[in-house]
């Protein structure tokens, strides 16, 4: 994509997209050069650092179209975040204004200037000129401590996208996360139809809607797809292109998809918020060909100390936030933290370094979970770890040493889960608790962790 072409201009040049979110909401970004959903003059956001904090995905995508080229930085916030976490992410991204829903806002700006946005009340607006290069900021996951935010540009985000017209797109992801955003941008740059799920819509209802709309290209995590494979309510669901990303695609889910969608093109992509898109594998097997490690074209891949490193045009520029580490090594490679083992001519993913758990595509740091579990007064010590799981890829298991004299049983289990749940995001809440008499320590006195 050429420099300084804004998202709305690029979408307009592609011919315009219709976005359908839930049974009702829709918009055509073609119009957003000259129309605006802001209740006040959007030019007040020129050069500002703006968070998009709407409940639904469709207004968030419309706001992205309006803010690209206008704001100095825009921060995408996926749905379902607790207000205090949203505020902490905004602090990390040095945000000074927020786009909020005009009706029943889920977020009030927490002291920042709030700008009301309404997708079903577009009004005429002046086109933006000249546009500036907007930074696209997205929170990363799986780190402990204060939130970290990866900074992209429209160019890094679209580096792997080859616009393809003639197919309608949909994603099980939240389009404010990297994997979902890839599909939304692909649809916008292709002038293609895009369907995203609406608030309150169940996954089964979403699949039924995609079937009625004859959507051809559907992306999601292996966990999203396993769920779809367990859903017999829409036998006519038959996308032409099935895409998996965000977590390890194992042979079983790939074979299950092949059996369920015999004529579909099935591929799994490797991508992350930090490293961008690494590669796409379409031979129906888990992992990726070891030959990818030797290729000279971007993105380049190498394995260093057991983890995959990626260097390519899709990588984020840098990380923001207190104590944020350097994103790239001295040669410009991003360390993915994904453990990879070479077996013959194939490379297989083994999990995440540092005990980080990938639960259905969302990374969780064990330290974050342990801190929440330790907040319960009857917990003396605990250790969170990943357990492989055929439904969600992995789940979080916490071994707990209970305080002496406390009865370790179902009542305590429930109390600990309730206490931890109040401090964690839904996907971070431990799936299983195991009471143990003691936990092993390393020679240095630290909690021993595998891998």
């Amino acid at each position, binding site marked *: 994509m050429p420099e300084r072409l804004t998202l709305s201009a690029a979408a307009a040049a592609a011919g315009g997209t219709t976005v359908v979110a839930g049974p009702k909401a829709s918009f055509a970004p073609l119009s957003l050069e000259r129309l605006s959903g802001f209740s006040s003059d959007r030019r007040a956001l020129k050069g500002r650092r703006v968070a998009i904090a709407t409940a639904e995905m469709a207004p968030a995508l419309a706001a992205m179209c309006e803010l690209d080229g206008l704001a100095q930085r825009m921060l995408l916030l996926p749905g379902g975040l607790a207000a205090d976490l949203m505020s902490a992410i905004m602090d990390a991204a040095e945000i000074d204004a927020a786009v909020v829903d005009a009706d029943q806002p889920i977020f009030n700006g927490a002291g920042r200037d709030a700008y009301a946005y309404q997708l079903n009340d577009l009004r005429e607006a002046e086109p933006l000129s000249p546009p500036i290069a907007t930074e696209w900021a997205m929170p990363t996951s799986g780190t402990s401590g204060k939130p970290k935010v990866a900074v992209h540009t429209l160019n890094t985000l679209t580096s792997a996208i080859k616009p393809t017209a003639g197919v309608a797109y949909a994603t099980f992801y939240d389009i404010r996360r990297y994997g979902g955003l890839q599909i939304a941008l692909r649809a916008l740059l292709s002038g293609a139809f895009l369907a995203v799920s609406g608030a309150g819509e169940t996954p*089964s209802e979403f699949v039924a809607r995609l079937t009625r709309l004859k959507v051809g290209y559907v992306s999601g995590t292996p966990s999203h797809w396993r769920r779809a494979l*367990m*859903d*017999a*309510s829409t036998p006519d669901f038959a996308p032409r292109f099935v895409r998996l990303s965000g977590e390890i695609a194992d042979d*079983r889910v790939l074979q299950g998809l*092949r059996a369920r969608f015999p004529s579909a093109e099935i591929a799994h992509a490797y991508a992350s918020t930090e490293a961008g898109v690494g590669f796409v594998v379409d031979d129906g097997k888990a992992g990726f060909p070891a030959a990818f490690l030797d290729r000279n074209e971007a993105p380049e891949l190498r394995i260093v100390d057991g983890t995959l490193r990626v260097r390519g045009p899709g990588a984020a520029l840098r990380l923001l936030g207190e104590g944020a580490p350097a994103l790239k090594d001295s040669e410009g490679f991003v360390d993915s933290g994904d453990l990879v083992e070479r077996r013959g001519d194939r490379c297989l993913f083994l999990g995440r370094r540092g005990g980080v758990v990938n639960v259905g595509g969302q990374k969780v740091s064990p330290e974050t979970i342990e801190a929440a579990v330790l907040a319960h007064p009857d917990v003396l010590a605990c250790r969170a770890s990943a357990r492989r*799981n055929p*439904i969600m890829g992995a789940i979080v298991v916490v071994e707990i040493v209970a305080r002496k004299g406390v009865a370790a049983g179902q009542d305590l289990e429930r109390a600990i889960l309730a206490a931890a749940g109040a401090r964690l995001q839904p996907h971070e809440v431990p799936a299983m608790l195991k009471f143990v008499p003691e936990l092993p320590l390393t020679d240095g006195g630290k909690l021993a962790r595998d891998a």
Partner: protein
Amino acid sequence: MSARDAIFQEMRDVAALQKKRLATLADDLPLLDSGLDSLGFAILVARLEDRLGADPFARSDNVKFPNTLGELVAFYDEALA
């Protein structure tokens, strides 16, 4: 205890832990209408592996995913046979 009894009991326990309302359990109940979400099923399968010593989802000779509760029970019965 049969696989069926173990599955039904664990489903009730997981639903209680996850604060989900469980549907009336019957063979023709679609799994996705049972009241458990994906995480609930993930926990169920892990607990059943601990309890029954089997994870039929890990078998490579059966690529189909069960759709109903009856199919899930048959899935475990096969793995335990």
